[in-house]
């Protein structure tokens, strides 16, 4: 029985002295040059573009839109599509834990030390990244109800029906909230046995009365729970699973490394898309806007 650490040492690649070069000058030179290039580039950038400085902070004047620093705008973007606790805290925590856990799950030492070490690595990366980018964009468009606006404009524009508007029967498909507000939940209650259990979907009693002061523990608003928690979470879990099944069916996935490649690339796609949308496409009231239409108002 060899311990894991010992096994790791045992399988470490052999040193091949004749394949080695001296750090001085070979590496030190490269480091020096890249540092120099970066210093110059940053100097030039800093000489040309000034760091922003707006008016003095004023707690009474809220800019609209108010935005976090750009590297948190992916989270602020999530905030628009789900319960804040998920978007701001739970999702990033889980994402970071999963990220850190990759090496403990994908332990096979094959394919390390070279770019895209498995047969289908390139395809998996490109597919994961592109598909995730596309789907994320579509979901954002849908939750921003742009499909409603576009459908209305197209049907009116073609002269098919000059005062067409999104049919009330499809209100539930306007956006994510539609699952909450666009469905006649109140008429869907039912009774089990003697209990009028779900008589009101909007206040399913959960907590034990008197044991907690937190009202959200006491009553569960099912429609809102569905649209703000169940659907977003099911999407975030379900889509990656679908990605894996799809690529498996294509015969692209053979090892855990392949799954990691696919999901990591998809993650990068989502990360980038949400960051870009949050930074450049959110205007007043966090409405979707093209970048050139975004003005910040102080209110």
């Amino acid at each position, binding site marked *: 029985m060899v311990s894991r650490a010992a096994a790791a040492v045992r399988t470490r690649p052999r040193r091949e002295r004749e394949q080695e070069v*001296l750090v001085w000058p070979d590496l030190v030179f490269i480091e020096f040059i890249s540092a120099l290039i970066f210093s110059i580039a940053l100097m030039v950038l800093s000489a040309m573009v000034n760091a922003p400085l707006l008016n003095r902070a004023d707690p009474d004047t809220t800019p609209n839109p108010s935005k976090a620093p750009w590297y948190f705008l992916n989270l602020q973007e999530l905030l628009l599509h789900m319960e804040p606790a998920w978007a701001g805290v739970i999702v990033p925590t889980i994402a970071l834990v999963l990220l850190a856990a990759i090496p403990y799950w994908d332990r096979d030492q094959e*394919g390390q030390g070279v770019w895209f070490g498995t047969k289908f690595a390139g395809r998996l990366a490109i597919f994961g990244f592109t598909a995730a980018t596309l789907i994320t964009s579509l979901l954002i468009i849908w939750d921003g109800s742009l499909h409603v606006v576009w459908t209305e404009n197209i049907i009116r524009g073609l002269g098919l029906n000059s005062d067409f508007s999104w049919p009330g029967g499809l209100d539930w498909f306007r956006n994510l909230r539609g699952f909450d507000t666009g469905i006649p939940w109140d008429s869907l209650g039912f009774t089990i046995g003697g209990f009028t259990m779900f008589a009101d979907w909007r206040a399913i009693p959960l907590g034990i009365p008197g044991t907690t002061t937190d009202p959200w523990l006491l009553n569960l608003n099912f429609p809102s729970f569905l649209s703000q928690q169940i659907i977003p979470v099911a999407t975030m879990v379900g889509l990656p699973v679908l990605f894996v099944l799809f690529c498996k069916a294509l015969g692209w996935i053979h090892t855990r490394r392949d799954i990691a490649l696919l999901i990591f690339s998809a993650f990068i796609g989502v990360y980038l898309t949400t960051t870009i949308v949050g930074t450049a496409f959110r205007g007043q009231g966090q409405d979707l806007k093209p970048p050139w239409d975004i003005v910040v108002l102080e209110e």
Partner: protein
Amino acid sequence: MANLERAPRKSFNDLIYDLIFKNYVWQSIFRTGYPNTPRNQMLAVATNVFLHLHPTRIHRTHVKITHTYCLGGLSFFMFLGLTVTGVLLMFYYVPSVERAYQDIQALEANVRFGQLLRNMHRWMAHAMIILVLLHMMRVFYTGAYKPPREFNWVVGVVLFILTLLLSFTGYLLPWDQLAFWAITVGTTMVGSAPVLGDESKFLLLGGFSVGSNALIRFYTLHVIGLPLVISIFLAVHFWRVRRDGGLARPL
């Protein structure tokens, strides 16, 4: 015979060279001349306090730019640059609600190269985040997290979080509208955590909203707390790269 010939006269260049590099003071600092034999070159790396982060030799595939694109090194270089510009900024900046904004304005208007200094610090901070993310991607796509480097990947994830926190704490310091509201939005997100949300937010801000307590907390974390912590993790990170046998390469 040859011994009898006069030594060739030193050229002007050699004279200058000797004047600079062969004088008593220079040689007290750098004990040897330019290391021009392999043995001396290895010694130069092994005995120099800065260079000895490196091994003396590395595998030839790892000096190819396209293997690492220097991304880890450049992330670290940004950290060093931010430390230097940050220390300079501290000369001009007082973290109080009354003075912070004014100090930044004065830095831009009255201090020679003040605006440039601030710009450098700002753009380097952004660059560092991007470089760290790219570095993470290069490590991932080269499969360099695999055993025995699992733990160094985890250290890397911690470094990424610390990098974001450093940037976030710095964001508040200019005390302008951008800073104030970005931190308000950011800390509100923290406050929405299902457990201890309000408590963490209170701890971070030293109050219920962004004010003078928050400013002094962010400042202290930004200029000393987080830099110390990240330095420790950086040391572990670099040490582990060495201990794990240099960069990953195929079995």
